[in-house]
């Protein structure tokens, strides 16, 4: 079985969000991590590899420094890594991104494609399903459990207060929830291998099944007018009182603010 996991390097929002003067994200000033949902998807793929045997390839589109994220995936146990990078691909929205990644996937053999549900920087949840449309394969989104049954996958899809069990013939695409699988750590030996691994790099010219009308900023129907950080709340007030006094204090404050 061949599994391709699409992963994205995203800014680590734990350290705060930084913007360029034009309102776009200042990615260079922020630490970068593997998108959490993608990491859960990678873990799910590695578990399928452990259980059924599989070759796991990770693929990302991004700046050259996204190789760090690919190396992390290799150090966790992925077998191959591919980076799609080119200046002309920059500024892509979900349409341009999914078109580009799908063109990369067309160069590969796969039974299963796993993407994260959504990335923490864009939060669209569109790229995975769009890729499946470009490739004309079934998609099962919001996966919380994946099992293999011969040529089929059986997936639990999270849905409000319940889940659906769906069965699809491979090849197909699954979008993974963060809670699908708790990611494993890298291993020290895995890191040594990852650092020495050959990472395949594809530029625009390598993606023959891609229309120039669908790439980069120019090929993106979505235009971001402005982005800004959320207005942060004040630090608030901390009081250390025993529960009875604390309740009385709280009631008094709520009363003062005419909240009750």
């Amino acid at each position, binding site marked *: 079985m061949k599994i391709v996991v699409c992963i994205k390097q995203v800014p680590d929002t734990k350290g705060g969000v930084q913007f360029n003067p034009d309102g776009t994200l200042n990615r260079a000033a922020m630490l970068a991590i593997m998108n959490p949902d993608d990491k859960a998807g990678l873990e799910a793929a590695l578990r399928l590899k452990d259980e059924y045997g599989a070759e796991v390839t990770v693929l990302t589109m991004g700046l050259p420094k996204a190789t760090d994220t690919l190396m992390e995936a290799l*150090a966790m146990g992925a077998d191959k890594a591919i980076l799609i990078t080119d200046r002309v691909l920059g500024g892509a929205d979900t349409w341009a991104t999914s078109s580009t990644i799908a063109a990369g996937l067309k160069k590969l053999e796969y039974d299963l494609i796993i993407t994260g549900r959504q990335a923490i920087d864009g939060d669209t949840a569109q790229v995975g399903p769009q890729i499946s449309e470009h490739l004309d394969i079934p998609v099962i989104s919001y996966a919380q459990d994946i099992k293999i049954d011969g040529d089929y996958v059986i997936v639990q899809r999270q849905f409000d207060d319940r889940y659906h069990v769906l069965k699809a013939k491979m090849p197909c695409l699954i979008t993974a929830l963060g809670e699908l699988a708790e990611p494993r750590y*890298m291993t*020290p*030996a895995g*890191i040594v291998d*990852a*650092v020495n691994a050959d990472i395949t790099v594809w530029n625009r010219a390598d993606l023959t099944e891609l229309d120039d009308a669908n790439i980069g900023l120019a090929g993106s129907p979505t235009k971001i007018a402005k982005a800004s950080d959320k207005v942060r709340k004040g630090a608030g007030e901390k009081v250390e009182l025993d529960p009875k006094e604390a309740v009385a204090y709280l009631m008094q404050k709520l009363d003062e603010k005419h909240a009750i």
Partner: protein
Amino acid sequence: MDFTLDKQHEMARTLFRDFAQNEVKPLAQEIDETERFPMETVQKLGKYGMMGVPIPREFGGQGCDTLTYVLLVEELSKVCGTTGVIVSAHTSLCADPIYKFGTDEQKAKYLPDLVTGKKVGAFCLTEPGAGTDASGQQTKAVLDGDHYVLNGSKIFITNGGVAETFVVFAMTDKSKGTKGISAFIVEKGFPGFSVGTLEKKMGIRASSTTEIIFQDCIVPKENMLGVEGKGFSLAMKTLDGGRIGIAAQALGLAQGALDNTIEYVKERKQFGKPISKFQNTQFQLADMHTRVEAARLLVYKAAIAKDTQKVFSVEAAMAKLFAAETAMAVTTKAVQLHGGYGYTREYDVERMMRDAKITEIYEGTSEVQRMVISGNILA
């Protein structure tokens, strides 16, 4: 000359830091309080290869260099000195000598279980009358047909109560002095082996430090480690490596205490402003940071020397001496800067100060390190 870590070591540090933060830090206070050995952490460490970082892959280890191993012990010790020493004693003092001095059969038999954390390892050299003067071994090993019979007792054995594989030193020929000492691999289940008193300690309270007793203990002849009569030299060479592990533990404790203090002084307010705004605090932190960084350079240098030089005793001794004294000085200042809160168990620096003290004592006291260093420069 470049003092920055390369990609591999940076990634390893990230891995060890994440592991320490997620898996080790949450337990640190509880296991110190209850003196409970964190076996679940050892199993997780084993699962991810961290109980055998420098052991070659053919024996199930990770095949990494000593610097990678040092980064592991440092990051673990930043949040929990106990976990740091569990890994250090297991790796440097048990797995490492078996790998270096063991026969192919011994390596194949013992290393796979050690490096995966299925079994914990320990090192038995110290005796009631043989501490800094390790040559005064009283434990005897007498050959009797196809086995040796060991009699005697060892004290202050790190991992003693939980280990299953022990590297043990005993006199095979008392008339030859240190040249009559030999090393053995002893299993917990061998007849005549028992674990004695569990020590109640000031720091590293969750590491199991015990007496080990050999009463007509039967050890198969093939379990002699290295050559008969070369045990003392084997012990000293092993301790050179062990000292780098303890130096890394001390470095981690110092850095951990400094990190906690930096966070605290920005929050703690006195006289209407954070105490970080006072020059006394700033100067103290500057001194602490400078010392920690100097210790780091010595520790990393010793780690690289272990992999590139035949003899690295002086580098290891200097790293351990300076890192241990730095750990003690920095953790003491950290408690001082925390004021009364730092003296309570609610704050980690209290534990770190208690943990730091032992780094000046075990695997060669600071005085022994000074003897090694001065002996070398005066030779």
